[in-house]
């Protein structure tokens, strides 16, 4: 089964004279076990496509199947539930909650999936240890470096073992070495045979981690 299958996805913002066509008929397939990089200049529609694949944005036309599920056809509640169980997120600006510790941040998806708090936080601590920051589990993200924060975000993105992990510019705020380090973690620790990893980026330093790269411009995929 394909991890992701998108056909003729179209999406526009605004109306009439202010209308902007963000996606103009995108076809995309992602295999299980594949690390796909979507690259392209700003405004090319990468993040819009990622949002539609992740089920947090509705396309105007076309169909998008994630592990066989047509997200567009699901009612909101079911779609939210599907996202919670099957999709992990890693954001460009981390979106870690500064009032919580790293461990508490990483445990959020498990708690949302009904895992009791102590068990969720214990697993979060284990993953953070595996990702190389065992001493930071009880520290607020604001006390961490960019690379460490992104590790916490990765831990949060994969703690509930989602089938699809979507990453939006995960290395944008990181230096070269840290950025590569993060990609190594994503490829070695997170990517499994039954999972897929989609990374949106315009950072050429991490292109060599990709199993496949698709280029986008002006709302279309070129290769």
């Amino acid at each position, binding site marked *: 089964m394909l991890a992701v299958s998108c056909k003729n996805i179209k999406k526009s913002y605004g109306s009439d004279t202010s209308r902007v066509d963000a996606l103009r008929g995108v076809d995309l397939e992602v295999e299980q076990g594949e690390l796909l990089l979507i690259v392209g200049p700003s405004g090319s529609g990468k*993040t819009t496509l*990622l*949002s539609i694949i*992740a089920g*947090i*944005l509705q396309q105007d036309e076309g169909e998008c199947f994630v592990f066989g599920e047509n997200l567009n056809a699901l009612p909101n*509640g079911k779609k*939210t*539930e599907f*996202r*919670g*169980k099957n999709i992990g*997120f890693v*954001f*460009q*600006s981390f*979106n870690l*909650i*500064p*009032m*919580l510790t790293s461990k*508490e941040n990483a445990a*959020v*998806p498990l*708690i*949302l*999936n009904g895992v009791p*708090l102590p068990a969720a936080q214990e697993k979060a601590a284990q993953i953070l240890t595996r990702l190389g920051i065992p001493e930071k589990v009880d520290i607020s993200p604001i006390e961490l470096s960019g690379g460490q924060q992104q590790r916490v975000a990765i831990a*949060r993105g994969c703690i509930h073992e989602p089938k699809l992990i979507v990453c*939006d*510019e995960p290395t*944008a705020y990181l230096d070269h070495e840290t950025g590569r380090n993060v990609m190594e973690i994503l490829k070695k620790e997170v990517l499994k045979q039954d999972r897929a990893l989609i990374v949106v980026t315009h950072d050429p330093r991490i292109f060599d981690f990709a199993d496949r790269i698709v280029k986008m411009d002006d709302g279309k995929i070129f290769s």
Partner: protein
Amino acid sequence: MLLYALKMLIGDKAKYIGIILGLSFASFIISQQAAIFIGIMTRTCGFITDTSQPNIWVVDPKVQYIDDIKPLKDTQVYRVRGIQGVAWAVPLYKGLIKARLANGNFQTCIVIGIDDATLIGQPPKLIEGNIEDLRAPDAIIVNDVGAGDKLAHKKGDLTVPLQVGDRIELNDNRTKVVGICSVSRTFQSQPVVYMTYNRALSIAPSERKLLSFILARSEPGEDPQAVCRRIQETTGLAAYTSDQFKTLTVDYYLRYTGIPINFGVAVILGFIIGCAIAGQTFYNFTMDNLRYFATFKAMGANTRLLVRMILFQSIWVGAIGWGIGIGGACLFGFLARKTELSFWMPWQLFLGTGIAMSAICSIAALISVWKVRRVDPAIVFKS
């Protein structure tokens, strides 16, 4: 997730303290002003509360409240005594009489003349002296607040309270203090002087009728309200149970004085200010955290859970704000207990303030909930 909601709330200390302060202020203003209002209203009928032996008050039908005295004929007492269901009935005088102080000043006093034989209508608590001494010639009993302040001897900066054995002139009649009592504070804060009914009649300015009230008690097993109806039908006078007379008095002050409006405005202002401060700060807090709520939403939190988190946060700050405000009001009342300020906080006021705080928090939370319900999870990808 509720624990996380709490940590998010407490973690933003500046806003957390701001919301708590806003709610505490509102809670304090609402409860303190309302307590003063209730205290004042309680004072208006304090005399009825103090006079606990009778459970029926018989008055002229035109009387609108306790201080609106329209004297009755003395013979009415006998008519009331003859009505079925009345165990006993006694006369009571209540009027204002000027006392001349040692320094030559005059002080208006509330004079209560109680039944000579039974001493029914006596003060609720005697601090010094014996109630039987009231039957001695020229005897009076003065309330402690009046004795210690308005009737006290002033010698330069020194104030010597009126004591048992001291003499004062009431309407040019020499009287002797035989006891000091404690009574509810009066609305006008005038000293209260108790004496026998007949002595009161001899001291009071001459009028055709001087009987202020007939105090009566229903026989055991009789419904006081039914007895009141019988008194009204038989005598043409108005008869109220103690509670009815209190209500009549409070209603008068509520209807014909500006007191409720003044305090009502203060309470409403407290409510509005609380809404404004707490609502605005809570809304700002939610807006600051909107990205995190969107992140939760993207990661699988449904709207119901997010709403629960916000409601929990609002209930938390509401409960703390309520507690601090009510505590502050109680402390205020405690510190003011020896002053002229009337202040009473019944349990209903705690409940009422709690309801007001719940309303403020609900309004604050509703605005935030409205925003969070519409948050687009796609904003999580915006840097």
